[in-house]
């Protein structure tokens, strides 16, 4: 057993301990168990990454480390193994998952301290980390699918953790089922992939692309189906509707889903299967379009949200859109780097938002906050650091990664200047809604009904500070990702010289615009969120939910309920009804009247005689 095989199982062990002893553990013990499970994983991943770095320094080959545990099952001749594979890509992922996950666990320990099902909550969080580690470390796509589904199930459990609220249960179900649609597409992609390549091992598939690539039609379909899976998990258009509702879960859960796990899975999948996508340039283009449209739509929706967590949720969708756009446009390294930095600053944002929510007695509406800068200065500063990284303020980690993506867009083979403009517009909107959030939440007067009670537990503050450091400096962590991806040949077109300055400048302009629009509102005593149909339209997520509800959900439910008693059963009932009818007819003849019997005797005789005669 090496560190690699044990890595995903540390959180599993702690999960098992927590779930078995659940309520018998006190807070301290449960916290130690939960944190040590993820912490051990983090240590192991640090060790592993160190080793991997040493290997890649000493030799030129980019082969990763592979550890096989056992043969899961056979698909004909192909062995599907339970095996883990570590290369720079999965190294980045495990570092993010375990590192950020650990910090979120620490925060969650303080945040959920009062909950009576505390150890069950921490158990689910551990299981979530475990599933995500299996997902990113999987050597083959079936094991990846296991992690993929595991993440979905854990998200269901965590979003619906406060299950007694019907709304939470519905949100949990929605998250599970919408992502499940994507999962099914992914599964179909796996079937097709197996049919074409006769293997589901990721490295074998990628290696095959060099020697005997997929036919373009097969590649087109497979890439499309895998994209379907990725879109579901990463909350991209058109399967994005579950993500805002998933805010029903406790705030650390939102942080975990958005920053460290789950939503990055789709990005990881597409990055992982880059070899297949290169065979299907149309779909790669589609990936870019999906990303760019999502980032715009999510940004517009974020502009009109009143719930602090929903603003952040839409911003996550938007940022994942950047990653998708980067992957589609060939900026793979930048996209993964953005994944990492996004994990840092989005975790920071969610956790600080969680701290605010905790202080404000679970008040999440920003229009009932305000003036927090004076009352909770440390938290507010940390939040603003996260916001700065989010809008790619120069010097922060977000700047490093996002500018890297945007910088490559103009020249990329699949995407053109159109994508560049969309990304820039997205950045502008990002700045706008971020500072709308900042101004309304932190400036002006405090408008809440309850007195604020900021928590000062060290488990609450230490993770926040560490994440803040990462949000600023995280962009400079070496990732060594270049060797994973096939370099895309950029056409040698000149990009205009003003590109860079526009990209940097526009978000800063947006801050000014936001100041002009929103700062006066923050100072008003009774700020109104906004009126007008356009505002409502974007607050409702541009009507996607309503459309799906009317087009898919309601007809399905209606159809199912309509046939609730099984039309086929009616056919069977018809047979028995027939028998009953004949039975009652025959019974009616048997009336018990003697004279009637005599008469039938006579009729019978007549018939008999007629028969003799004829």
């Amino acid at each position, binding site marked *: 057993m090496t560190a690699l095989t044990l890595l995903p199982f540390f959180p599993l062990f702690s999960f098992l301990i927590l*779930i078995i002893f*659940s309520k018998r553990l006190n807070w301290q013990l449960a916290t130690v168990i939960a944190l040590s499970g993820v912490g051990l994983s983090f240590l192991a991943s640090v060790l592993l990454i160190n080793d991997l770095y040493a290997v890649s320094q000493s030799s030129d080959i980019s082969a990763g480390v592979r550890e096989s545990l*056992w*043969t*899961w*099952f*056979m*698909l*004909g001749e192909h062995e599907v193994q*339970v095996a883990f594979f570590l290369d720079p890509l999965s190294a980045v992922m495990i570092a993010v998952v375990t590192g950020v996950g650990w910090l979120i666990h620490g925060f969650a320990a303080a945040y959920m301290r009062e909950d009576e*099902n505390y150890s*069950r909550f921490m158990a689910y969080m551990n299981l979530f980390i475990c599933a995500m580690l299996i997902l990113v470390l999987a050597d083959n796509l*079936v094991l990846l*699918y*296991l992690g993929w*589904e*595991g993440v979905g*199930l854990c998200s*269901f*459990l965590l979003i*619906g953790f406060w*299950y*007694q*609220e*019907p709304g939470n*249960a519905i949100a*949990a*179900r929605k998250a*599970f*089922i919408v992502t*499940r*649609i994507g*999962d*099914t597409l992914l*599964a*179909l992609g*796996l*079937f*097709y992939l*197996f*049919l074409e390549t006769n293997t589901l091992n990721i490295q074998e598939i990628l290696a095959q692309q060099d020697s005997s690539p997929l036919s373009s039609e097969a590649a087109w379909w497979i890439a499309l189906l895998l994209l379907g899976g990725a879109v579901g998990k990463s909350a991209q258009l058109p399967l994005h509707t579950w993500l805002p509702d998933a805010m029903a879960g406790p705030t650390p859960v939102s942080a975990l889903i958005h920053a460290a796990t789950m939503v990055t899975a789709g990005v990881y999948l597409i990055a992982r299967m880059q070899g297949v996508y290169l065979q299907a340039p149309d779909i790669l283009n589609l990936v870019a379009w999906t990303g760019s449209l999502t980032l715009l739509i999510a940004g517009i929706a974020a502009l009109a949200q009143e719930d602090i967590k929903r603003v952040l949720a839409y911003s996550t969708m938007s940022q994942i859109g950047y990653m998708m756009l980067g992957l589609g446009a060939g900026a793979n390294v930048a996209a993964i780097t953005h994944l990492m930095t996004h994990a840092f600053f989005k975790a920071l944002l969610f956790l600080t938002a969680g701290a605010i929510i905790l202080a404000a007695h679970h008040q999440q509406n920003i229009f009932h906050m305000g003036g927090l800068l004076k009352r909770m200065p440390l938290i507010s500063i940390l939040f603003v650091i996260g916001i700065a990284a989010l809008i790619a303020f120069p010097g922060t980690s977000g700047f490093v990664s996002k500018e890297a993506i945007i910088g490559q867009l103009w020249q990329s083979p699949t995407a053109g200047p159109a994508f560049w403009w969309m990304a820039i517009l997205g950045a502008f909107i990002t700045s706008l809604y971020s500072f709308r959030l900042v101004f309304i939440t932190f400036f002006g007067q405090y408008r809440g009904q309850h007195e604020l009670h900021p928590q000062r537990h060290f488990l609450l503050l230490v993770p926040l500070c560490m994440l803040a450091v990462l949000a600023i400096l995280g962009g400079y962590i070496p990732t060594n990702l270049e060797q994973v991806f096939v370099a895309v040949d950029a056409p040698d077109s000149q990009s205009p010289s003003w590109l860079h300055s526009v990209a940097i400048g526009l978000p800063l302009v947006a801050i000014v615009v936001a100041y002009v629009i929103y700062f006066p509102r923050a100072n008003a005593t009774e700020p109104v969120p906004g009126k007008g149909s356009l505002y409502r339209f974007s607050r409702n997520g541009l009507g996607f939910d309503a459309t799906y509800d009317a087009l898919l959900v309601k007809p*399905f*439910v209606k*159809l*199912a*309920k309509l*046939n*609730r008693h*099984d039309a*086929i*059963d009616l*056919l*069977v009932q018809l047979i028995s009804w027939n028998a009953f009818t004949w039975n009652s007819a025959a019974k009616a003849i048997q009336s018990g009247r003697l004279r009637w019997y005599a008469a039938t005797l006579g009729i019978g005789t007549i018939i008999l005689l007629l028969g003799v005669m004829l």
Partner: protein
Amino acid sequence: MILTNIIAILMLVALVSLIIGSKFSRSLPYLAAGSVVLCFFLLARFASNNHDIFHQAMPLLSVPWITSLGIDYATFIDSLSFILVALTLILALVCILVSVNEIQHHHNFYYFNLLTALAGIIGVFAAADLFLFFFFWEVMLLPMTALIAIWGHENRRYAAIKFFIFTQVSSLLMLVAIIIMAFIHQQQFGEISFNYFDWQRLNLSMPLQYWLMLGFFIAFAVKLPSFPFHTWLPDAHTQAPTAGSVLLAGVLLKTGAYGLMRFVLPLFEQATVEFAPIAIALGVISIIYGAVMAFAQSDFKRLVAYSSISHMGFVTLALFSFSSIAYHGAIVTIVAHGLSSAALFSMAGILYQRLHTRELSKMGGLFASAPRMGGMLLVFVAAAFGMPGLLNFVGEFMTLTGTFASHPVATVLAATAMIGSAIYGMYLFQGSFQGKPHAGVQIADLLAHEWLLCGLLFALLLYLGLFPQSLLMHFEAIYPAANITVTGGKL
């Protein structure tokens, strides 16, 4: 001898419990459980002694029975039979465990019926002589009907009669086909024979073969159950006592799948190839229809019953796609569905004992008072909707992977059931255990014997889900119909 011994032990204990059981009704579960464990032990010892010969069919006992008609008492075992017999015995233990608190009257006759039905089912899996097969087929039917009719819920008589008529009518078609086969054997080889291995030498001309195949297929499709013949299942499952539901879903449905694997596919190769499109269509319709209908139900057991239809559709789909991967998938699905549906029905029974209702609308919020039960239910629901790591996923995945090569459209349609199963699974779990608890509803968490049965089923689902090779490694040698191409048979 081994399977005969098992059948004999079960029958003997059944008789003993019938005759003297009325005085010792408290100790009857122990007696029954003891006999089942003894049988399992015998089977395990036999398996460990004969580890190598499972790949081929291994004849066991053959005694002339009705010599004038060439009927023997002949049994045999191969890996398929072995797995199904083992599954039957495991579920028998589950049945006995769920019956402990549920059965309130006529204990002795109840255990008589339960054990006789088990003996019949094992006989079905063991018979090498088709007459014997039919005999056991009927033996398992009658006690099952009695179980539903006597110890069932409010509408039990209707359900029992429906179950009986469906099964009986369809099995009569099979009887006709069996007799015709025996006479064909007489025509071709000079003597009448009901022996399965003799029949494999038969040379059947095409239209006749098709009709005979249909006779067998309808009998098994009713048991399976496949789409147009499924309507007995929701009623029977809903009305049966918990052990009856477990037995029905766990193993009785599997006799249909077993029949397809054992008789329809190998004996009528050409006819099955011709029939395959229809069968696959039926399978796909069953999958989708079952999933949609499951979602529409508000009765816990009815929902699970429709999900069974959906899952068994995968078996039909797998078997008639003639792919060895899908064939393996069908075997895994059979075992997986046996365990998971048994678990869900046990859960329904456990809840019914506490709440005296099966209506989901009258449940809700039970997680607060019974978190362990909720956890177990979630695990079993997860198994049902194909959560990787549990056995059902392996079956579904292999089935669909195998089918995709030859029938991509059918596979895509069947895959939508993965969404459907998630929907009804979530509906089931959330409807019963999440949401606002009804005022004053407090239920006891799992009791010791309930822990035992849940733990047993969960452990099996998880172990086999992670190591399905321990199930499948014996199946290298037998791929009936795997080597024939879709364009034509060997005839």
